[in-house]
C-alpha cells in the first residue's frame, strides 16, 4: 500500500488509485472531469434568475428515473443547479445548503450572492488538494439580493465567473450560441422562459441524449416564484 501510494504521489490527480479510501470520488471518473451529460442552463433577467436542468438519472445504458432533482434552493433567494456524478452532486449541494442554513442561524443575516459564490468556490478549491479529491460537481449559482439578480458559473475545480447567462456540460455547446444571439439585458420572465425553451428544443433536435423532462426554477427578491416541469420534446 505504501509502495502504491508513493508511486501515485508523483502522478497527476486524474489517475485512479485503487487503494484510495475515498474511492467514490476518483474511481468512477477514470480521468473524466465531472460528467458532462447533465443539462444545466441558466440566465439572469430584469429582477429574477432562471435555471433549467434535465431530470434524467442514468447508469450505463439505463435511465433510472425521469424526475431527478438537480436544482436545489440553498437559501430563500438562491438557487444552485449542479451537474456531475450523482453522488458527488447531491452530497455537494446538500453540504452547501446546510452550511448556508447554519450561517444564517449563527449570524441572523442572509449572505449576498457574491459572498456565497466565493464561499462555494473556496470549498471547491479546498477539495482539489484534499484526500478525496475535487467535488465532481459543476454548478450554476443564481441569486437575487440588494444588488439585483446575479449568476455565477462554477466548475468542479473552483473556477468562478460572474455571468449573465451560462450552461454546464455538453448542453453549453448547444445553448451558449443561442443565448449569445437572443439574450438581452432586463428580459421579462416570459422572454427568459422562451429563451430557455428554445435552448431545450435545440437539445431535443441535436443532442444525442434523450431528456423527456426538464425542471425550470425562477427566483426573484421574494423567493422562488416558478417551479415547473417542461416537456423536453416540445420542439418550437
Amino acid at each position, binding site marked *: 500500500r505504501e509502495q502504491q501510494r508513493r508511486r501515485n504521489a508523483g502522478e497527476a490527480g486524474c489517475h485512479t488509485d485503487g487503494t484510495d479510501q475515498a474511492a467514490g470520488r476518483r474511481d468512477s471518473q477514470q480521468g473524466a472531469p465531472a460528467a458532462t451529460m447533465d443539462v444545466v442552463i441558466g440566465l439572469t433577467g430584469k429582477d429574477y434568475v432562471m435555471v433549467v436542468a434535465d431530470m434524467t438519472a442514468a447508469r450505463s445504458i439505463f435511465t433510472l428515473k425521469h424526475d431527478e432533482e438537480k436544482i436545489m434552493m440553498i437559501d430563500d433567494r438562491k438557487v444552485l443547479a449542479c451537474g456531475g456524478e450523482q453522488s458527488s452532486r447531491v452530497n455537494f449541494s446538500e453540504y452547501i445548503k446546510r452550511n448556508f442554513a447554519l450561517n444564517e442561524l449563527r449570524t441572523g*443575516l442572509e449572505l*449576498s450572492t*457574491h459572498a456565497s459564490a*466565493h464561499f462555494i468556490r*473556496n470549498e471547491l478549491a479546498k477539495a482539489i488538494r484534499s484526500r478525496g479529491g475535487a467535488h465532481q460537481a459543476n454548478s450554476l449559482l443564481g441569486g437575487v439580493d*440588494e444588488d439585483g439578480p446575479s449568476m455565477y458559473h462554477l466548475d468542479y475545480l473552483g473556477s468562478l465567473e460572474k455571468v449573465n447567462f451560462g450552461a454546464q456540460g455538453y448542453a453549453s455547446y448547444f445553448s451558449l450560441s443561442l443565448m449569445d444571439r437572443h439574450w438581452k439585458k432586463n428580459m421579462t420572465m416570459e422572454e427568459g422562459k422562451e429563451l430557455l425553451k428554445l435552448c431545450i428544443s435545440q437539445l431535443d433536435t441535436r443532442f444525442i441524449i434523450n431528456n423527456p423532462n426538464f425542471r425550470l426554477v425562477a427566483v426573484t427578491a421574494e423567493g422562488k416564484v416558478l417551479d415547473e416541469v417542461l416537456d423536453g420534446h416540445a420542439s418550437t
Partner: protein
Amino acid sequence: WPEARGRPSCSDGGAWGRRRREREAQEAQEARRPRARTTMGSRYDSRTTVFSPEGRLFQVEYALLAIEQAGACVGVLAKDGVVIAAEKKTTSKLLAPPKTSEKLYMIDDHVACAVAGLTSDANVLISYLRRVAHNYKLQYQEPQPLEQLIQRVCDLKQGYTQFGGQRPFGVSFLYAGWDRHYGFQLYQSNPSGNYGGWKATAIGPNNQAASSLLKKEYKDECSIEEALKLSVKVLNKTMDSVTPTPDNMEFSVLRMNEETKKLVQHKMSNEEVQALLDELKQEEEEEKAREEAKAAK
C-alpha cells in the same frame, strides 16, 4: 491498574497519583497557612476557573481593575460615521516617540479599534482580530459584518475565563466599523468576553464619569463634527492632566467619502486636534461668560 497487575515500579499510582498527592499536600499546606484578609475574595481568586460563593469571577474583575491604570478611550456614534478618541499616556519623557499608535488600530478597511489595558495582551488580540477579518474576506470576498468579528474575539476571551487555567486578557476594546447590514456601529468588549453595541461609551479610568457625561450630552443622529466635539469634551474631563494638548490625545474618524462612496479611516493630525481643542476652549469661555453674565443679573 498497576497495583492489580503487581508491577512494583508503578505501585504508587504512577504520574497521575503523584500529581494528585502533590496537589492535596499543597492545598493542605495552604489551608494551614494563615491567609491575610484582603478586600476581595481571597480563597477564590487564585484560579480563573472557579466561581466565588457569591457567583463572581475574581480574575475577570481584577483584569477590569488593571484596565483602570491605562489611558482612557471614548467612542461616539454619529449619523454618518463613528469617532473614537484615546488618551495617550506618556509614561516617560525618555520614551522614543512611537512610529505607530499604541491606542488606535486598523483591523480592516471597515473596522478600527481603540485599546485600553495591557499593550502586550492587546497586541495578541489585535493580531487575532486582523486574522479573522482577513480570513473572512478571503473566503467571502467581502468585508466581515462587524458583530460577527466581535463575537469571534469575545468567544476567544471567554475561553480564558472558563478553562485552561490561564489568566484573562487585560484589555478592553472599542470597535468602530461599518457593514452593509447595519451601517455604522460602535461596540465595546471587555476581559469577560461580554460585548455590547453602543451609541456612545467610554473605557479605561474614570469611565463612569465619562459615561454619565455622555448620557447627558449625547444627541441621537448627531453629525460627525458634533460627535468630535463631544468626544473631545468627554476625554478632556476624564484625563488627569490639566492642559490638554494634541500630544496626549488622538482621534480616529470612520466615515463614508461622499464622492467615491468608499469608507475612509482618518487619523486626525496634530493640527486638526489643536483646532478642535481651540474650539472647545472657546466654547467653554463663552459658556463661562454667559454664566457670569447671568449671575451678575
